């Protein structure tokens, strides 16, 4: 029985990675849910918007590094982020003007807009690859670790190491800050309130004189900012590869739908729920149990519910269960 080692192992391989991953999913899901709330369609291009925003950030980061500017222990990418958000915002507005507005004017059915967004997705995917290539890029600089696993082992004398990457802490802190800012914006500003009104009841909102084009514009700008931030945090924490963001689309949509489409709070809860489930279901608990159980009772097998190959299957399963039993999601969003 060795409670401390068990807890450290659990934190190192489950709690810390899942929390960081959850924060990244939550930010992504917020963007999806926002577009769904205002424009009433599932934006499949969101994953590639994240990739494009991150590509902008990487290019700007390289520029800043070339000029010799850095943030000391923090990644330079944070400095480049606001500019990248502005660029992504411009791309979002341009896409809306050239593509989505046409279908909005025609009052196209949501399913048509979904297909349109898939087209946008492929174009954006191509632009991202064209812009920055298909190779893996690591753009995190500055201090890599807050707690180094090896140093932790030596300092505490424990058998298990605990690694806490600075990017993981940064991810969670940034996510909390962004979410707080978003909620303040939605609840306290005039624009935020009009967005909520528009989302709740479009006709009433129009009657009370809210300009729909303005609301749509703000929705795209915020979605672009959220996507870029989520993409950059994911890229800093893991690595950037144009294609991996496309794969993130599934867990992000699962998060948004589980939480309830259109509900910002639901997107956050959904993000963490999906992240914790994915990691916990595919983690092999052999080591933790070996520490916890008395000698001689240690498990022979790996005590792994699912092979890591089936990580995405977890998102799918949760999605199906929620849609079967609570179609509006945990936080009473809109039914899909």
């Amino acid at each position, binding site marked *: 029985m060795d409670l401390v080692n068990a807890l450290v*192992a659990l934190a*190192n*391989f*489950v709690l810390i*990675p899942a929390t960081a*991953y959850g924060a990244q999913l939550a930010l992504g899901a917020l963007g999806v849910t926002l577009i769904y709330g205002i424009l009433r369609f599932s934006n499949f291009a969101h994953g590639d918007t994240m990739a494009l925003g991150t590509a902008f950030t990487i290019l700007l980061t390289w520029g800043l590094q070339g000029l010799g500017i850095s943030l000391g222990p923090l990644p330079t990418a944070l400095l480049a982020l606001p500019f990248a958000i502005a660029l992504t915002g411009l791309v979002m507005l341009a896409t809306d003007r050239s593509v989505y507005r046409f279908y909005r004017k025609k009052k196209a059915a949501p399913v048509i807009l979904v297909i349109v967004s898939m087209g946008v997705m492929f174009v954006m995917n191509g632009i991202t690859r064209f812009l920055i290539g298909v190779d*893996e890029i690591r753009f995190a600089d500055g201090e890599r*670790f807050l707690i180094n*696993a*090896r140093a*932790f*082992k030596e300092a505490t004398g424990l058998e298990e*190491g605990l*690694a806490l*990457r600075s990017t993981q802490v940064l991810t969670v802190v940034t996510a909390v800050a962004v979410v707080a800012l978003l909620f303040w914006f939605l609840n306290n500003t005039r624009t935020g309130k009009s967005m909520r009104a528009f989302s709740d009841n479009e006709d009433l909102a129009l009657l009370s004189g809210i300009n729909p084009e303005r609301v749509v514009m703000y929705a795209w700008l915020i979605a672009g900012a959220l996507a870029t931030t989520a993409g950059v945090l*994911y*890229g800093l924490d*893991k*690595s*950037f*590869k144009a*294609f*991996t963001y496309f*794969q*993130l689309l599934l867990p992000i949509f699962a998060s948004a739908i589980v939480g309830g489409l259109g509900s910002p709070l639901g997107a956050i809860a959904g993000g963490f729920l999906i992240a914790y489930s*994915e*990691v916990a279901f*595919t*983690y*092999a*608990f*052999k*080591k*933790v149990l070996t520490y916890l159980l008395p000698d001689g009772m240690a498990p022979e097998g*790996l*005590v*792994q519910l699912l*092979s*890591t*190959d089936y*990580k995405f299957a977890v998102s799918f399963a949760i999605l199906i269960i929620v849609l079967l039993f609570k179609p509006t999601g945990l936080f009473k969003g809109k039914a899909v």
Partner: protein
Amino acid sequence: MRKLLLASTAAVLAAGAASAEEIKIGVILGFTGPLESITPAMGAGAELAMQEVTDSGMLLDGATVTSVRGDSTCIDAAAATAAAERLVTTDNVNAIMGADCSGVTGAILTNVAVPNGVVMISPSATSPGLSHTNNEDQGLFFRTAPSDARQGVVITDILMEKGITSAAVTYTNNDYGKGLADSFQSAFEAAGGTVTINAAHEDGKGDYSAEVGALASAGGDILVVAGYIDQGGSGVVRAALDTAAFDMFYFPDGMVGEALNTNFGAELNGSLGAYPGTDSPGAAKFQEMAAAAGIDGTSAFAPESYDAAALIMLAMQAAGSSASADLKDHVMAVANAPGEPIYPGELAKALELIKAGTDIDYVGASAVELIGPGESAGSYRQIEFIDGKYDTVNFR
């Protein structure tokens, strides 16, 4: 006019046939696809040997050898079969140097080479599944690359010498990774070691912390990473180092490269590995020849490609015929001892010796020694990480 043209063409053909035979060798490699970065050097290596033989004018009394290239795509068996079919039936190649990846090589062998009776010598297909111990290939298939079954034994030997008895294995989820992981597991367990976990990872993902979590939970003294250095393999190593899940790694052939030094450096101190390579003087000689011809001779499997093409032509000389049916029985004889050792650049001498009836032992650029059903015994360069970069410590 038409008659005149036909007549002149016939005359040219007749004249050509009278002076010397024109031999064609098919070069089927994945010029597009996942290996497209190394296949140009492989093809050029093979053509270097053909050029050497043509220039010597010694093969079958002055025959010229030309290469006809085909694209195996490395992954698309149907496309590879079609390309091989074209080479064999339309271009009438005498033999095939190729293919490169194990899957397409097997497809070409069963669909084209065996039905048409054409000899194939692959420079790089390493799957244990291609060892035809029951003559399924009708003696037509050879390879200058070792089977991964051999690499499994090499890894086991290296680990056992270091006193490592438990290992976790992660492999890239394809024929190469799975074949290597399984051959290592059976060899290691036969030698008394324990494989704690043998789990796949998918290439091209952003995050491997879940995979590493499972590997770490299973434990083991060392992590064997049977993956690709530019793909998931490096991702797994990064995540394992970050979480201190493993201190020691073993890198098979797909993982050894300069990128390990630049990406990880001192973090890998003490880790082990091995990749095909030899300290035979032939390797250095090939590098020189390749450099003079403007080819990257250090590129993976380029020496093996040179050797594959050379073996085909030497076997033709030994058989006294350029037909696959005749030359297939002579490949093993020219490749192995006894006989005069032959290094790269000495093909003219080899052809002369064979003509004079002297036995030769082709060593070539990759120290060729064909065993069993005609595959390379395989020599490996064992490496170890010291002071942030890997160094060759031994040859096996």
